[in-house]
């Protein structure tokens, strides 16, 4: 059953070499995290661009996480 917290949309932009690999490992270990978090893989967190960030917010994201 979804809770109010689950309705929140957090877009996580993750570097493929560290944060994304860590999320992958967490999945492999069957660790749980909120379904609110949607991961977008980036070749490098330096690829993160303010235009992509604004687009995510415009499309309804409640928060952005850049991890790398």
């Amino acid at each position, binding site marked *: 059953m979804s809770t109010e917290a689950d309705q929140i949309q957090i877009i996580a932009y993750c570097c493929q070499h560290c944060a994304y690999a860590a999320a992958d490992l967490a999945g492999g270990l069957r660790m749980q995290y909120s379904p609110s978090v949607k991961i977008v893989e980036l070749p490098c967190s330096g690829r993160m661009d*303010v*235009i992509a960030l*604004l*687009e995510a*917010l*415009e499309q309804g994201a409640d928060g952005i996480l850049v991890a790398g």
Partner: protein
Amino acid sequence: MIIGEQKPLDEIQGLLEDAEKVLVVGCGTCVTVCFAGGSREAQILSSSLRMSSKLNGHPQDVSDVTVQRQCEWEYLDEIEKEVAEADIILSLACGIGVQAMAKHFPEKWVVPGLNTTFLGIPVEQGIWEERCAACGDCVLGLTGGICPIARCSKSLLNGPCGGSEDGHCEIDPDIPCAWQLIYDRLTAMGREDNLLELQPPKNWQVSRDGGPRKIIREDLRLISDELES
């Protein structure tokens, strides 16, 4: 290059108040390289305006387009269709581009998104400084390539003045004294004798004091005045 600076979002919102459909027009030349009004800035500003207008309860339809140069008619023809669909045009060009848009699309209300600040140079990443005042009578040949008109706070031709202190200007210790720079440069080049030659009052008529300026190059014109008449 021409250096511009984006106006505060509040001011831009005020200029666009009554419009429903806004077209943000970026310029691909000077204001792109000074990160004020290029394609990126047009996209970012459009997104910000869409979100802020939504939050204010009056959502506006904001789109953006960027042309190579807003100060030439040929490039403006390319965006005729986008302009026709908009209620208002927010130009992110310098003042020249804004005026070109208003002239080229006389039926549209065109407003500026930037303050055009000066003719200058990026001295390092993120820092721009004024270098030319477009005075119409260049004296750089006398001053070792350092402009006393743009860089001396008083535009002195025979400086420095008494306000020069330890190589800095009295108006702000962060501003180097242009005449100190000129002296150092001429000394380094072995041309300090240039400073012994007193400069007569400058002809400001070729600057703004002579009113709006115009250059006509008959050798470049496609139709001369004689043929036109």
